[in-house]
């Protein structure tokens, strides 16, 4: 739902680093998006297409790695990827969890020429 604002922010980061590296063209951007942020990858790609028009990053491709929710069980200490909606430790069945992954939202790297 809030992809435009987020895509604008990430596009600024991309351009800033491309300029610093004195790049001529930005070919792609590698992103990590946590599933719990609700940010939709297709939508980010769509807005990047619009925002990048007539810039050195025109037509850049977004390679998006979606990071699933991850939790550590407070009862037995197991760290696991949380399957859809099943907020329960797969080993001991406890629902006392420390959520420690799935909210990532960062630019990992860019590919430039």
């Amino acid at each position: 739902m809030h992809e435009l604002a987020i895509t604008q922010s990430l596009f600024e980061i991309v351009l800033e680093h491309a300029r610093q590296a004195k790049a001529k063209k930005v070919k792609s951007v590698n992103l990590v998006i946590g599933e719990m942020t609700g940010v939709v990858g297709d939508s980010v790609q769509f807005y990047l297409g619009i925002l990048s028009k007539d810039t050195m990053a025109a037509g850049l491709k977004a390679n998006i790695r979606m990071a699933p929710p991850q939790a550590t069980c407070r009862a037995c200490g197991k760290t696991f990827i949380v399957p859809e909606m099943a907020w329960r430790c797969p080993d001991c069945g406890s629902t006392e969890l420390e959520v420690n992954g799935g909210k990532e939202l960062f630019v990992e790297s860019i590919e430039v020429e």
Partner: protein
Amino acid sequence: MEIKILKNIMGVNDQVAGKNRELLEKNKVFTINIMASPGAGKTSTVLQTIKALKPLRVGVIEGDISSTIDAETVAKVGVPVVQINTGGECHLDANMIQNALGNLPLDEMDVLMIENVGNLVCPADFKLGESLKALIASVPEGDDKPYKYPGMFTAVDVIILNKIDLLPYVKFSVEAFTQAVKGINSKAQIFPISCTTGEGVEAWGKWLKKRIKDTGK
């Protein structure tokens, strides 16, 4: 050629949020970011909280996609209020708050309540410069919401469960809700209240007053 960046996309927003926080702390204003789904009772809770916090002086920022209905309702109780219309954006961001802060008498306020846009997804990702993140859940929404919106339920410091006067009429287990919240967010305290009957409001107000006092030390 690949360039490593590793930069948080929310960095620009977070920077502005940091500036808001500085300004608010300089003026000794304790700020609460109130998030909820539409219709959970955000404005009613704001009004009840203003009463419960007396004699502390409260100011309010109302965030809505459109209209000034909420701001008008709040203005009637005689507190300073600024309405932000996001014009379609589904959340408030730090920049909008920065602009709104200029229109509030911060030096005459102890507490700022920011009523975010009704939405359980996007507001969780945008820091505003708040001292406390509060979520209002309400009984008719169902007790399974913590599992459906884990991003929001793990982001907040305190949860108000509103409309408990409807418990006899709605299939909602306070125990199941509490278990779900505690499971994924052990630090969040839950305050069951009813803005209609006033039940539970005192306990919430008392806790909040203590929190404000402890922060000011």
